[in-house]
């Protein structure tokens, strides 16, 4: 095998981590919505925040292979951290709130990770759920800080960059959320291509193999769990700021479940599953609940069953199968067929 052929195999291998032109699509769509549909900016901001939360979940389920039902714990922790910081401590600068929410999410993440990552599978699932319910009840009891069942209201955010007020038209919160999402996406895009990111995928594929090449599996899992928790905390803090309200629902099992549903709809372990699944979920929710405000969950359930039975990999999976044949770059495939002959 000559060296240029080898180089093209290496290039084809490394190309996976490069940016593809289609990756501009979500951002283009977000920009178009900003200019064309100003009436949807409030809803849009909530979609963007949820995408961040779903991304953090995908990091766990899709990349690390850790399935939990407790991911809302970190979202809620970040939300309450940002809320309490604003209401009780009077610190209402938005970026400070985000930083505090991220740190609190990460700290709760590392502490619960130390406990639940000792287990696998069903035990992990149940432990994560138990921790979430404990945290929710703790927030309910600490009503002096959290407002208990009434929720934490009275957040009033300072203007963004000291200049842009969180107005009713949703413009500022939309762009704020979009900016935070973009930074999160850049971070994940970078992280998943690093040796650490690839080793986490390796652990998902076969933890025994990764240990057999000398990786400390438990420590890597704890690291990725903490990162995912911190990002969920960031999403929670952002949600609290744009709503200027925190409720116990942000620490609920239902919210964890919703994120799982969105991932199933959009597609797991694809990063863009979150970008597709979240708007599909919100639109379906909006459309179906207009028809029947009580039983819309039935149709959502039916859609989910159909996707799981017939289209594993979600909406993105369907698209990927359609474009699959275009995946392998011409140069690499010709190099390989040359090598095989």
């Amino acid at each position, binding site marked *: *095998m000559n060296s240029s052929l*080898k180089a093209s*195999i*290496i290039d*084809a*291998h*490394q190309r996976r*981590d490069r940016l593809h032109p289609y990756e501009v699509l979500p951002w283009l769509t977000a920009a178009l919505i900003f200019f064309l549909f100003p009436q949807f900016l409030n809803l849009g901001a909530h979609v963007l925040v949820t995408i961040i939360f779903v991304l953090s979940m995908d990091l766990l389920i899709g990349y690390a292979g850790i399935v939990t039902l407790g991911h809302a714990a970190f979202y809620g922790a970040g939300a309450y951290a940002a809320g309490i910081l604003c209401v009780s401590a009077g610190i209402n600068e938005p970026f400070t709130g985000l930083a505090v929410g991220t740190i609190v999410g990460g700290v709760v993440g590392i502490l619960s990770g130390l406990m639940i990552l000792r287990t696998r599978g069903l035990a992990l699932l149940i432990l994560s759920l138990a921790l979430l319910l404990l945290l929710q009840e703790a927030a309910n009891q600490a009503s002096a800080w959290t407002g208990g069942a009434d929720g934490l209201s009275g957040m009033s955010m300072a203007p963004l960059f000291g200049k842009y007020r969180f107005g009713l038209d949703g413009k500022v919160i939309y762009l704020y959320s979009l900016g935070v999402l973009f930074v999160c996406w850049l971070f994940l895009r*970078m*992280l998943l*291509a*690093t*040796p*650490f*990111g*690839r*080793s986490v*995928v*390796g652990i998902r*594929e*076969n933890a*025994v*193999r*990764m*240990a*057999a*090449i*000398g*990786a*400390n*599996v438990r*420590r*890597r899992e704890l*690291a990725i769990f903490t990162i995912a928790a911190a990002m969920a905390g960031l999403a929670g803090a952002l949600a609290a700021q744009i709503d200027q309200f925190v409720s116990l629902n942000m620490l609920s099992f239902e919210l964890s479940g919703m994120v799982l549903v969105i991932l199933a709809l959009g597609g797991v372990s694809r990063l863009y599953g979150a970008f597709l699944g979240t708007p599909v979920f919100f639109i379906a929710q909006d459309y179906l609940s207009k028809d029947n405000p009580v039983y819309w969950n039935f149709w959502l359930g039916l859609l989910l069953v159909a996707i799981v039975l017939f289209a594993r990999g979600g909406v993105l999976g369907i698209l990927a199968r359609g474009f699959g044949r275009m995946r392998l770059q011409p140069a*690499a495939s010709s190099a*390989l067929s040359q*090598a*095989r002959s």
Partner: protein
Amino acid sequence: MTALLATQALCKSFGPLVVTDHVDFVLWPGARHALIGPNGAGKTTFVNLLTGNLRPTSGTISLLGEDVTSLSFDSRVRKGLVRTFQINQLLMALSVLENVQLAVLERERVGSRPLPAVAVQRRAAEEALDLLEAFGLAEVALDRVATLPYGRQRLVEVVVAMAMRPKVLLLDEPAAGVPPSDSRKMMELIGSLPGDMAVLIIEHDMDLVFRFAQEITVLAQGAVLCQGNPGQIVDNPLVREVYLGTQSHG
């Protein structure tokens, strides 16, 4: 000369069942050692004790003169004790190349780096591709491991271990499930291991054992029955009785 790997009075029992019974075992640098024994003799358990996949009930294990009895599997790997598995343990959804590349990155202690390392990863991929090429696997480098036939996956399993540049390599039935078309390649692969590496092979294929081993340990009911060079083992009446039966091999 210090032993690379040694056990002293190593015991393992599961309840009343003794599966490893006071085993004293030494592996010297450059060793080509085979571990044989009838089914249920405790060969795989013994290997699992050596690597840290199992904890012994009593006794000690030392690696390069250091007591590693309480060290975990992965920390023993980082000290140079590498194994392959009786049943493939590979990253099935990833490419053959990446399976080997990740091993190179872990060996170089950069596997946990959370920062971009494109040049480092490229060098590791190049080294991985060179290794694959040396064993006729370069043309499937970009294929997902899951798409390879089992025999070729078996070769990948050994190439991944080689990429770790171990000081001690334990091969757990490397030829199991390898069809005749690939078994010559497997022999070649095992024959090409560096001379200073200590290799322990557990194998049922007596052709492979007698071709490869300079030293053979026979395990029966968890204990060492006898040890010697292949000639001594073949001529040992005890071995013939418990292991080889009435047939003659080799």
